[in-house]
């Protein structure tokens, strides 16, 4: 007898029911019957009859029960023949009840696997316990956070207690009631009658709206996605061609923008131009075009391939353009330029013949020639020139209009102004004669642009273009000449540069004057000159250059410096009395400073030259401190000093100095300074880590008295000294600081050499101990607060563990967010796990 019954016996069914969803169908009934049949199965055949009887009885009792059907499945019959009435059964088979029952009965789902069940159980258990424990989270959190804890925790609340809730006032008298009703009826407070539903309806959107919004959002997302993809691809792309195209496009765009800007906002256009110029300079610095792999390869190919040759030429030209310093006008003699020209010609010749190879060392001189070749026409410069022409013309028109207006209104004033203008022009001319540097300034000033050497270049270039005669060598000529030419040329044109010069000059001078008056600077001191740096472009001032003071560097060749100078020059215009003074102003200043310098450095008894040369060294001069200007104290003379009757000796400097000299000679201060610097050098040498050589005599060569080890061997086994940090006194000349003596070993033992736990940086740790806590250093209250122990236990009391009452204290407050999150996370995990497990079980 076999039944489609459960194969597994459920031992802990109760438990299972807890976790597994209720199984469809009732299992218990089957089991019972199962047992019954089992019995009959082993049973004797004699009992067959009784059994049949029993069955019928059972049938009678529970008609709805279906085991009857199962009996059919029985295959083996007993050996003894017994009459079994099967008609009833067949009837039953036919009946609809059988069908019905067969429909209802389904296979019981497969029980879950044991490990899964156990896991689920554990998860549920964890959840339960976590809930139990987590309620303490807040309390624990606060305990751990608090800097001071005092036990026992429960302390009597001694605070003043107030009523928490005020009961509503009882309306007792009729008057009160009336007033209340009046107030109530007046409806001073408008009630919000809107229901929740209405509010929701208000907020709701129509389907179209939602669709519209969704579409819009989709579109945005899509655009973003596309853009990102494009950007990514572009970033990935390594195609040179692509990048070249990009660059070209960018340049084209910039050009267009510039043109547009020129029309709308000339100032901005100028700035843009400057930016472009900066980009050019940056590229020039990087020299990428010169050293690229491509250029290298072209060099090899150039012999055979004409295209490569051309490309190389183009590259060379670019390189030349980029590498040439703007504004360098070598003041070289004509010979130089001739040489260059010759070299160029030679090279061109070689190129034509096809024998030119840039990598060939024998033709190096041809290569060299190119590097010397001065800059040729630049596109940007021509642009610049055009632009300035436009600006100037516009200004001129404006000016004319203004002048007309002004003439109409006040003629007299205009005349006065013109007179002043003329005067200043005159002055300028004299200045031009004396110092040609000024020319540069003025030119820049006319353009209203400071520190822009391009302008000058541009102008000179323009001359070249206009004249159409000048060769490269001419372009290299002295600047003054070109500028003069330029002026002449310009004077022929509509726009007279002279006029513009004057105009701008006046404007700027006035501004500067005003500013200087405001500031009230006395710039004549030597300090102002110390910032002057050596630059190129020396001018006619070479006469003055013979005066060798470091601070006053006449070899300065930068226009910015010249502007500084011009600043000072303009300042002297304040007193317009003497033109002569202005023209020789610089020389005067130079002499002034020379005198001052002497006065200052005189006390050090050192010449200016040595001073300056020493200060340039990395190692600082120990006499540096001597340069602090010494002021005189109005001291009284003691009675018993030899020179009596000398009170406040302001007038007797000479005598004083004599005495000083005598003392100086007597004690030979130079010797002391020298001695000190020797001492310092010795200290430096001593503290330097030493080079050690591990070479041993007799290994690999002969040894003995008077035989020296070979230098090669010593060098071979030399261990180079580790480079330590720089000495702390390396920048101070007059100090020898012995760090080992100062921060000595005993002190270092007392110092902290470990970073305690939470700190990761030394700075933070040092900051955490920066405040002293002793009562000598801080106020009493602060001292008490800073030195309170973190845990205080009251002596003589029992400290009992926390009870759940403690939770009540914190109930009012929200549990900390992190605890909550943790809890939720846990719950989620548990849920997820169970779900996953179920899914897996189902698939099995």
């Amino acid at each position, binding site marked *: 007898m076999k039944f489609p019954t459960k194969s597994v016996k459920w031992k802990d069914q109760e438990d299972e029911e807890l976790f597994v969803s209720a199984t469809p169908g009732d299992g218990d009934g089957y089991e019972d019957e199962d047992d019954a049949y089992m019995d009959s199965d082993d049973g004797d055949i004699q009992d067959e009859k009784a059994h049949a009887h029993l069955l019928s009885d059972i049938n009678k009792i529970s008609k709805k029960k279906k085991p009857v059907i199962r009996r059919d499945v029985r295959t083996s019959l007993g050996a003894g023949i017994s009459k079994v009435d099967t008609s009833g059964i067949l009837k039953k088979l036919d009946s609809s009840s059988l069908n019905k029952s067969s429909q209802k009965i389904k296979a019981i789902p497969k029980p879950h696997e044991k490990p899964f069940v156990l896991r689920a159980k554990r998860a549920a258990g964890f959840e339960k316990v976590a809930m139990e424990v987590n309620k303490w989270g807040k309390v624990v959190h606060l305990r751990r*956070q608090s*800097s001071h804890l005092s036990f026992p925790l429960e302390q009597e609340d001694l605070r003043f207690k107030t009523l928490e809730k005020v009961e509503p006032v009882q309306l007792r008298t009729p008057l009160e009631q009336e007033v209340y009703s009046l107030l109530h009826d007046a409806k001073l407070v408008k009630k919000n009658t809107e229901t929740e539903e209405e509010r929701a309806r208000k907020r709701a959107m129509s389907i179209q709206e939602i669709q519209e919004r969704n579409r819009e959002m989709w579109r945005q997302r899509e655009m973003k996605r596309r853009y990102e993809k494009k950007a990514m691809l572009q970033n990935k792309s390594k195609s040179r061609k692509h990048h070249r195209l990009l660059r070209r496009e960018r340049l084209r765009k910039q050009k267009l923008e510039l043109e547009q800007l020129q029309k709308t906002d000339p100032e*901005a256009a100028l*700035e843009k131009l*400057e930016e472009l110029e900066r980009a050019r300079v940056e590229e020039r610095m990087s020299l990428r075009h010169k050293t690229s792999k491509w250029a290298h390869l072209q060099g090899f190919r150039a012999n055979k391939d004409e295209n490569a040759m051309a490309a190389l030429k183009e590259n060379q030209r670019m390189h030349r353009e980029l590498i040439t310093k703007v504004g360098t006008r070598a003041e070289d003699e004509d010979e130089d330029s001739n040489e260059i020209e010759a070299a160029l010609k030679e090279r061109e010749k070689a190129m034509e013949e096809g024998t030119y190879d840039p990598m060939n060392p024998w033709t190096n001189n041809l290569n060299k020639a190119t590097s010397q070749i001065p800059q040729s026409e630049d596109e940007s410069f021509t642009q610049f020139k055009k632009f300035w022409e436009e600006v100037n013309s516009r200004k001129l028109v404006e000016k004319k209009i203004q002048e007309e207006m002004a003439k109409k209104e006040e003629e007299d004033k205009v005349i006065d102004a013109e007179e002043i203008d003329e005067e200043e022009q005159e002055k300028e001319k004299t200045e031009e004669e004396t110092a040609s540097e000024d020319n540069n300034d003025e030119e820049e000033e006319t353009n209203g642009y*400071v520190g822009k050497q391009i302008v000058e270049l541009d102008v000179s270039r323009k001359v070249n273009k206009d004249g159409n005669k000048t060769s490269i060598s001419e372009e290299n000529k002295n600047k003054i000449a070109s500028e003069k030419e330029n002026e002449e040329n310009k004077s022929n044109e509509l726009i007279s540069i002279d006029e513009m010069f004057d105009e701008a000059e006046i404007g*700027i001078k006035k*501004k500067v004057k005003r*500013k200087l008056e405001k500031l009230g600077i006395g710039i004549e001191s030597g300090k102002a000159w110390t910032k002057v740096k050596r630059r190129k472009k020396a001018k006619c001032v070479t006469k003055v250059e013979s005066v060798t003071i470091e601070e006053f560097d006449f070899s300065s060749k930068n226009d910015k410096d010249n502007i*500084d100078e011009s*600043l000072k020059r303009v300042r002297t215009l304040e007193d317009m009395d003497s033109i002569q003074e202005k023209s020789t102003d610089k020389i005067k200043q130079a002499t002034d400073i020379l005198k001052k310098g002497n006065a200052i450095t005189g006390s050090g008894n050192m010449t200016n030259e040595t001073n300056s040369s020493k200060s340039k060294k990395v190692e600082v001069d120990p006499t540096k401190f001597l340069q*602090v*200007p010494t002021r*005189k*104290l*109005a*001291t*009284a*003379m*003691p009675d*018993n000093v030899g020179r009596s009757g000398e009170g406040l*000796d302001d007038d007797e400097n000479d005598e004083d100095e004599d005495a*000083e000299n005598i*003392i*100086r000679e007597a004690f030979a*201060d130079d010797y*002391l300074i020298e001695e000190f610097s020797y001492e310092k050098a010795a200290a430096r040498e001593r503290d330097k880590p030493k080079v050690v050589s591990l070479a041993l005599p007799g290994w690999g060569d002969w040894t003995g008295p008077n035989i020296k080890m070979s230098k090669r061997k010593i060098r071979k086994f030399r261990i180079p000294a580790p480079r330590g940090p720089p000495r702390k006194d390396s920048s*101070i000349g*007059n*100090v*020898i*600081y*012995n760090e080992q*003596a*100062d921060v*000595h070993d*005993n*002190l270092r*033992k*007392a*110092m*902290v*050499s*470990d*970073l305690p736990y*939470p*700190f990761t940086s*030394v700075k*933070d740790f*040092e*900051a955490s*101990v*920066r*405040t002293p806590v*002793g009562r*000598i250093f801080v*106020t009493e209250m*602060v001292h008490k*607060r*800073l030195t309170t122990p973190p845990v205080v236990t009251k002596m003589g009391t029992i400290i009992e563990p926390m009870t759940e009452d403690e939770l009540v204290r914190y109930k009012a407050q929200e549990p900390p967010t992190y605890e909550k999150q943790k809890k939720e996370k846990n719950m989620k995990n548990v849920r997820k796990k169970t779900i996953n497990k179920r899914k897996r079980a189902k698939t099995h």
Partner: protein
Amino acid sequence: MMASAVTEKKKKRMRGKKPWQKRNILQSEVKDGVRITEYNSISLREIKKPSTHIYPGRKVIDPKLLQKYSKGEGVEVKSIGYKNKYLAHKLKEKEKAFQEAEAAAARAEILLTETSGQLLAEDDSYTSHITQRDIRDAVDITSAAKSFDLNLNQFGPYKMRFTRNGRHLVLGGRKGHLAAMDWVTKKLHCEINVMESLHDVCWLHTETMMAAAQKQWVYIYDNQGIELHCLKRMDRVLKLEFLPYHFLLCAANETGYLTWLDITLGKEVIRFPTLKGRLEIVCQNPYNAVLCCGHSNGTVSMWTPNSREPVASILCHPHPIKAIDIDPTGRYMATAGLDRVLKIWDARNLGECLQSYSVGSGASSVKFSQKGLLALAMGNVVEVYRNVTNGGASEPYMRHKSGSTIRDMQFCPYEDILGISTYHGYSSLIIPGAGEPNFDALEANPYISLSARKESEVKALLSKVPAELITLDPHSISQVDTPRLQEKLDAKISLLHIRKPKIDFTPRYRMKGKSGSAQKFKRKQKVKEDKQREFLQAAILQRDQFMEEDKKNKKEKSKPVEILDRFKPKKKS
């Protein structure tokens, strides 16, 4: 013009951006290339709703005052927050407490009620023309009593010293005259003749003890003139200094020896030759307890009892140095050279000369007062200058001519008095505004009672600073020894991350087909592996030992020492 260029550059930067504006700017415009901005005098933070409360809370502290008490930047708690939020929270709390400490210190300034006075002359006269007699006639009787002269013709020239609270004075004449007195009440403690030449005198930590550098050795007397000690390790001393927080008596020798003596133990800390010749010009830096000596080669050398070499030497004058002093805050050092130049130096930023003054005749002694006045002694003239450190001095604040050449002088702490000792006596001069008007009774109390003195003596002894902590930067004890930290870290890293060594081994050629490539490779491999295994085993062993040691150390450290531990059975090692 430069300014305009700058603004243009700025403009360029600002292009395309919304101009940033400070909230409390009233208006701002560019005029002649200079930006002129008008600020709201009150910042927005201050424009709060005026509090209507009767008691609007504590008074707001002046930020400048707060800055004065600032101890520096705080901890960046953010970076620590990742590791341990509880510790981070505690650190935050601590930071708050520190800030409150600063605020409390600033608030406590309200307790400094006294202000220092000064002399003001009429338009057509100078303060330096006001004589001591004028002042004495003008001031109240108690103040006038503080200005007095002592004529001591027989045993001069005199050296002198005030106690730290400025109440007591000791005078020592070259010819052996030693006298101690309460100079305010003019009560003489003792007066003896040591019957030897006396070179210098010095108070110890209280007024009950004083040291005298005599012809041969240094003696310690109590205030009744009873000889307590004879310090034979300090011989032929020219100059004495006492470091009050370290309880060290320092002596500078005729032959160039420096000696530090711990007076609490009577033990010599260190004694060594400086090799710099005769040491007579010596002073202590009250900020860091470093001794500064002036030498004849124009240098000032600084010494601590921890090294036989100077921690620093500074070339101050190209001539021999005649006098040296450091102001009580330890910020400025004044040196006077034989070149008749007085120089003011930054005492913390070594080697930086702040001011240089030429003095008519060379100064033989310079002294700072508590309030920053500087006294110069030249022959028999003493002059006091104000604002010497910031270069404001050109004329003397006060001037006094004494009868004979000045040998020594000192400003009296917490009093407007300058004491000068000459060849023929002592005189105290009233210099208004010289002394600190507010004294800290726990630090130095001029009106201290006997019991309080005893108490403070005990406390001072308990908080004695060890001599090892004397360095140029007194804060170095609260700093991390970074080189050692680096060393430790490196050692740890090197131990924890060991790489097996590369072994380059070429097997020997063997006959009978044993040097086939496969055989060779096998041999090579074997040797390689053997070597590497050996190395790694050793390394791991070492590392384990290291870790164990570390653990052991931690364990030992974690147990706090308890009082009853001494009754535990001793560990058998």
